[in-house]
């Protein structure tokens, strides 16, 4: 059974009388110990998806199941229990930590609500263990967030997310605010924690290179929809949706010897507004393969990997 399942998730927001189609029918399964990478450009709905998975937003339609239980249909008591299993690491290590709380209080705060996880006398020891786990020193518990660098703060955020021993952690752009030498440290930490504790991740990021390093499977989002999904190898080495191909092709390759040898696919224009998504296939306005059919009939993510009428054929 899947640990986390999204089934036809839809989230529309009403903004000044118009409807923003933030997430428009997203489904996936996540197995224990697995990482699902979610990639896409700004406005594709990846952060809204994270909030839906956390039950921080109510979906317009669709369901989220954790261990088979419907997250949006459960009573408060059961929901509280669920919170232990699903935790989140946020993007901004500066605004996601309360500046007036010590690190120990931040990391130990989940125990205030879930008292049975940590008996009062045990808290200090548990917090110190958590700090050690994420590569901080136990004595850091008495310091304040401003005394730490961005990378260290993100470690504090990870320690807090792990306090209740979750089964799945939703990471929304967990390293994009960090410097490049620090990003690798945090990504390695997340990978180590997964190996050590069998954690599952939904790893949301716009950085395709990072997702490749950490994910087992990938979902590529465009304007609220998953346009392609598959294993990391499938999506990165044999992409079939034109958008996936263009997205991968736009990532600068860190090897000057390849300059001019690759023929990049350049998309024209930018992502259309999610208030008024194109009819049929949402990518058709930027797609070089688009035909009449694409404007009238919406391609679905069926048995194939790509939601496209004219996907690349796999040899």
């Amino acid at each position, binding site marked *: 059974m899947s640990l986390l399942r999204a089934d036809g998730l839809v989230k529309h927001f009403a903004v000044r009388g118009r409807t923003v189609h933030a997430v428009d029918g997203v489904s996936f399964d996540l197995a224990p110990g697995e990482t699902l990478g979610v990639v896409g450009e700004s406005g594709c709905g990846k952060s809204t998806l994270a909030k839906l998975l956390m039950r921080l937003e109510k979906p317009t339609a669709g369901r989220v199941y954790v261990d088979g239980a419907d997250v949006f249909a459960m009573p408060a008591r059961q929901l509280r229990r669920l919170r232990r299993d699903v935790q989140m690491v946020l993007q901004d290590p500066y605004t996601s930590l309360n500046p007036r709380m010590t690190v120990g209080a931040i990391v130990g705060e989940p125990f205030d609500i879930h008292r049975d996880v940590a008996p009062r006398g045990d808290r200090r020891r548990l917090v110190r263990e958590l700090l050690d786990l994420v590569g901080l020193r136990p004595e850091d518990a008495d310091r304040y967030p401003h005394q730490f660098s961005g990378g260290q703060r993100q470690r504090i955020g990870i320690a807090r997310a792990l306090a209740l021993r979750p089964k799945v952690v939703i990471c929304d752009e967990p390293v994009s605010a960090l410097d490049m030498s620090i990003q690798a440290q945090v990504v390695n930490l997340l990978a180590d924690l997964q190996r050590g504790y069998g954690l599952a991740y939904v790893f949301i990021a716009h950085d395709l290179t990072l997702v490749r390093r950490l994910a087992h499977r990938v979902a590529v989002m465009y304007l609220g929809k998953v346009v392609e999904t598959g294993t990391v190898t499938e999506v990165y080495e044999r992409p079939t949706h034109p958008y996936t191909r263009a997205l991968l092709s736009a990532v600068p*390759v860190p090897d000057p010897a390849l300059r001019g040898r690759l023929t990049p696919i350049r998309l024209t224009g930018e992502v259309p507004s999610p208030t008024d998504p194109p009819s049929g296939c949402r990518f058709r306005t930027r797609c070089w393969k688009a035909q009449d059919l694409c404007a009238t009939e919406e391609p679905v993510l069926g048995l194939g990997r790509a939601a496209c009428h004219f996907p690349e054929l796999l040899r």
Partner: protein
Amino acid sequence: MSLLDVTDLRVAFGPTTVLSGVSLHLDPGETLAVLGESGSGKTVTAQAVMGILDPPAVVVGGCVRYRGQDLLTLPERERRRIRGREIAMVFQDALSALNPVFTVGYQIGETLRIRDGLSRREALHRAVELMDQVRIPAARQRVHEYPHQFSGGMRQRVSIAMALALDPAVLIADEPTTALDVTVQAQILDLLGELRRERTMALMLITHDLGVVAQVADRIAVMYAGRVVEQADVHQLFRAPAHPYTAALLRGAAISGTPPSLRDLPSGCAFHPRCRYAAAVCRTVAPSTVDLGGRSAACHFAREVLVEPAAR
């Protein structure tokens, strides 16, 4: 002689030294990438070259020569003549670089009216031409629109058009694509490359992205803690880095520790607490820049790092 020669540039914020002797040069028509993490001094270097340092930052030493003339000794009036006409700049955040209450056409044309004495009508006409040159579709109509009516990528094109208005010989672009999505970033990088070729303009591209560097740069200056720690041709540098910091970045390896605070720099080489080559000398003596034949590195062990296969 280079077009732009920065020598031993030092900048301080009060008691804190933020640039401790930056040297780099830019030749006509070339693209120099200035690569570094936040706090390494890349933006301050650009601001010092432009003469737009924010107080309390002040230049406390060194020189910035443009076509042989030291800009730092020029009176402000002269400096202003060079700014925009000889050296222009594009900023990371195009939305805050543009004034929300004027049309983009007015803003692109403003420089031309003030500096070249163009009439309103002439300036507007020229603004349309510039918008065409930066590939903004329907420029004739859009010239009358306001910044908020443009997407992120189009806004960055508008600010590039503004920078190009006086046909500068040097364009400094400070993280011009960092705020953009990857497909739009690719468009803007292509555009900058095309404009540089068409105008034989030199480009100083400030970035933290190794991929961007590999794609567009001719040469690279790598900055760390207020110094240029390595300077080389892009192919040389990616084949065989000479500084341990560059080597670690290229490997994509996690570098232990964090970038140092400029208020409290480590003794000797500022990178030594994070360096796997660090020896006793690194803790006490700041390395000078070693000439390695057409390239240089500020490391006591640059020659060893250069030939060590594991560094690659």
